């Protein structure tokens, strides 16, 4: 069950390259197995964060202060595209990230964020670029504020931007709701659907091979 998300004022790290995919966020060899959770934070962005000899790449933003403390990522277009691996979100979460701001995200990554209590915020690219520039102008010291109740982002210099969010997902984050439990409250409806669909589309429901 996800932790609730309400408000956050935090260090933000801009990662502005277009099309940062989930393979780059977490490489597959770090996530094969059923007990990988809890060890993923240090492998987030591994290909960018570490040099081939395993040492830190000092040019990568998350290896520099104060960005090491970042709880927000300001991202380029199409961040989180590619693979459905939810471990991409887990790895960000385990390195301390609680919100991502961008002009657009990979659809599956976007959905996976909500499942884990991470807030993905979509705003116009001009706003994203402005936030990144303000953060960089303060060498990362300027914090970004996020208020989910009010649906606002406050830039380091105090500029407020409102953002849109699906009301159902907003409520889910604010309260840390368990979606499985909520859907199971509708089990009568699911079973009623299946009963009538069995008559309508029997070939869907009788799947055992007849040979």
């Amino acid at each position, binding site marked *: 069950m996800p932790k609730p998300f309400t408000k956050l004022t935090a260090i933000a790290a801009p990662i*502005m*390259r*277009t*099309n940062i*995919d989930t*393979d*780059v966020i977490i*490489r*597959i*060899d770090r996530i*094969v*197995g*059923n007990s990988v959770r809890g060890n993923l934070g240090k492998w987030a962005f*591994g*290909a*960018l964060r570490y040099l*081939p000899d395993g040492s830190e790449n000092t040019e990568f933003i998350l290896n520099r202060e104060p960005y090491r403390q970042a709880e927000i990522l300001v991202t380029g*277009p*199409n961040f989180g*595209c*590619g*693979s*459905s*691996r*939810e*471990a991409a*979100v887990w790895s960000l979460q385990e390195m301390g990230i609680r919100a991502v701001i961008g002009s*657009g995200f*990979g*659809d*599956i990554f976007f*959905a*996976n964020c909500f*499942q*884990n209590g991470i807030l993905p915020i979509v705003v116009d690219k001009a706003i994203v670029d402005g936030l990144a520039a303000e953060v960089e102008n303060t060498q990362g010291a300027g914090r970004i504020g996020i208020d989910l109740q009010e649906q606002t982002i406050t830039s380091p210099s105090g500029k407020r931007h409102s953002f849109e969010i*699906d*009301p*159902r997902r907003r409520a889910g984050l604010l309260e840390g709701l368990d*979606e*499985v439990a909520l*859907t*199971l409250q*509708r*089990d009568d*409806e*699911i079973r009623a*659907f*299946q009963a009538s*669909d069995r008559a309508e*589309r*029997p*070939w*869907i*429901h*009788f*799947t*055992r*091979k*007849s*040979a």
Partner: protein
Amino acid sequence: MEQPGRTMLAKIWDQHVIAQIGDDTDLLHVDRHLLHDLGGSRGLLDLKSRSLSVHNPELTFATPDHAISTARGRASTSKVGQELLTGLRTETSAVGIEMFDIDEPGQGIVHVIGPELGLSLPGCLIVCGDSHTCTHGGLGALAFGIGSSELTHVLATQAIIQRRPKTLRVMFEGRLPFGVTAKDLILALIGHIGAAGGTGYAVEYAGSAIRDMPIEGRLTICNLSIELGAKMGLIAPDEKTYDYIRGRRYAPQGEMWERAVKAWRQLPSDADAVFDREVVIDVEAIIPQVTWGISPEHVIGIDGHMPDPQAIADPGLRAAVETALDYMGLKPGAPIMGTPVDWVFIGSCTNSRLSDLRAAAEVARGRKVAPGVRAWVVPGSETVKREAVAEGLDKLFTDAGFEWREPGCSMCLAANGETVPPGQRSVSTSNRNFIGRQGPRARTHLASPATAAAAAIAGAIADVRTMER
């Protein structure tokens, strides 16, 4: 008043709504849930730990594909890969989920076996914890990838919460030129509208080139929908679809078949249906495509040249191109053709079906893989493998110097440890050229099976049109 025309997406979507639970958001029935070794046992264990049961095991099917070795005898499956395989066996058998195990007909890449077994049907809603689930849309199914949490949700409820996407129709018009395949069409589209061009949309592929295209090509087209950013891609079912499905192991039979086909004939978008966006692609202007960078949108025709980052105004895009050229070890303005390659990988849920292997074999027949190149052929399923062997394709490939392997995902994402070594360059028929996708610092060029085979023979990226017979 006349009802306005409806899209295929709307028809299939509406048929699956259990309840509306928000603006544009519905609880949808899942008709088929496919599990694989990477996430299947985790989901089932997660459910067990929450004292929940599987809602409809008979609508859930499993097969190992991601983490198993594709070496003969599966000899080099890693310890963790073996644990995932054992876990999938134990957990599916405990709850009565059918699993297609290694060496059995039915095992294979999950997006190859769904259509092959007749599990994936027109109008069906299919989910799987894998982003390339959009592949099944080639049969007119509404199919999409989900994350681990959603996977647990589907196991527990046989339903999924989804926001209705916008609709994008892509018309591929014209006849495929010589040497041009389904893979080239979809790569060209990604180059045209970008890797986020389909984000938030369900894409319907239509037009004369799609109508003329065999089912396996349609599966390839839909497979790369996610590389456009679209979770779902679909193609209207037609006589080709019904001919493909008829008689398959889980396909409806007899009177049920007749009823099903009658229903499926209602699925295609109405002639007056309105899409949120339309794109038309002139197929006859497309030549064989190959990617040069680290996103599928970094794609050019085989006669093309690398871009020059200095000419790109947008800083994010420029940074992406600079990173890409640096990672790939390529120079701005250089031609793609003639770039030396170390590896060739023919396989993956994109291009590992019998027609793909035949296309590669046609190029390889009577020729030899260039010295210094390692070339792998990894059939998509046990059935594909057996059919290919029956045609002698395995021998043809091995005579030409290719390695013939067991079915699985293999080097597409290297989850089983089968990697392209650091710094080496591969031409792959898979779907992602991301940084590190085929292994740390591996360099991937995406292309069709014919173009990949041509690269293996030439030892460099080559124009298959000069090699085909």
